[in-house]
């Protein structure tokens, strides 16, 4: 029997800190006790989430999802799922601090078909009645980025806002920075996609 989807709502201001465990923001581990995958180039993907006026999003929740280092998913929708990295989860969750900052430990994803390497991010927060969706691209893959059909949907002037920036190193990990502006004028707002 066909059913209509349940309506979305905001997570509100009180998404529990008690839901988080160490390593939830580490995409390279299947679980807190599992060893990280040994494949791929490990990176720290970090940034700041702001709302209108540039004020930080406090206690916002970000969830990241990406392919493994070879561009595969352990999921029936991927015809090469059997070849996917068995030690890579590809999913992580982080909350923003008082300055709106978040961080994920992950690895550079691989591309697949016509998709350039990318990480999908969703942001939830108090007052965001529907979560927002965006995609992080990487400066390492300029040629693939130029051919990506999703990045091509974004106005050319806004495309650089979806490409992470080199942000030095921390504890031996290469850092990339990706800031999000939830609401702003056309020159500052992050491009978001329909769900």
């Amino acid at each position, binding site marked *: 029997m066909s059913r209509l989807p*349940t309506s979305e709502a905001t997570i509100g201001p009180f998404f529990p800190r008690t839901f988080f465990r160490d390593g939830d923001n580490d995409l390279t581990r299947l679980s807190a006790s599992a060893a990280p995958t040994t494949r791929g180039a490990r990176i720290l993907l970090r940034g700041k989430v702001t*709302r209108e006026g540039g004020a930080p999003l406090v206690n916002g929740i970000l969830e990241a999802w990406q392919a493994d280092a070879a561009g595969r998913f352990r999921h029936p929708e*991927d015809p090469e799922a059997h070849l996917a990295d068995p030690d890579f989860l590809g999913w992580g969750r982080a909350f923003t601090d008082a300055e709106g900052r978040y961080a994920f430990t992950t690895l550079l994803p691989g591309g697949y078909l016509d998709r350039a390497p990318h990480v*999908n991010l969703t942001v939830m927060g108090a007052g965001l009645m529907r979560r927002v969706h965006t995609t992080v691209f990487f400066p390492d893959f300029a040629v693939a980025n130029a051919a990506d059909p999703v990045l091509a949907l974004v106005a050319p002037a806004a495309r650089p806002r979806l490409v992470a920036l080199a942000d030095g190193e921390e504890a031996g990990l290469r850092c990339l920075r990706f800031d999000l502006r939830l609401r702003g004028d*056309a020159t500052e707002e992050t491009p978001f996609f329909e769900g």
Partner: protein
Amino acid sequence: MIYDPLPPGIEPVVPVPGYPNTWTHTPKQPLLRRPATRTERTAPLNLADKLGCGDDNLAVVAPGRIAIGQLIHVAGRVLDEDGRGIAGAVVELWQANAAGRYFHPIDQRSAPLDPDFVGNGRVRTEADGSYAFFTIRPGAYPVPVQDTWWRPPHVHFGVHGPATLSRLVTQMYFPGDPLNEIDRILQSVPDAAARARLVATALHPAEVGDQHLGYRFDIVLRGRNATPPA
């Protein structure tokens, strides 16, 4: 699976009056319609290992430590748009205590905290998509804005399904509460039938027994089969 755009009336409309964050946090530019590529059509299928599941009793924080409030059982199924149960979905639930206060550093209201209530749980759905929690009925609480309004008792649900496109965060309401009709968040959903689907069904006590009250709440995630069921 096919992920259709939602029919009109289901998604909440913003800004919500008296909730300034619905304005300051919501993108101004139109959302871009994109194809559903593999990244959108997939999600971790073993998320239960990452997050840890099985915490299904919010009403007992530790042996012998029972939360204050009306003990309730909330159960239902997680379904796709074909009405088929989704096995292995992760269901997260969080809520205020019986006095309407959250166990969260950001909630500094004067209502009491209950030392025996944290108010969050997480389970994995069974093969038929079913889930269940024991908890207590949460209290209502005022929204601290100039023109005060009250949130009716509600339970937050977050569901991780088989695709990132089917991820859902929603809120469940209790039938018959007079605050439901004037709740600005519930009423931001334009379609009356869609609002009704956010209200749990009270089970008759004869079905439930004398230990707790029972509610049923089914959750439908986006996604239907490419081939409709015969």
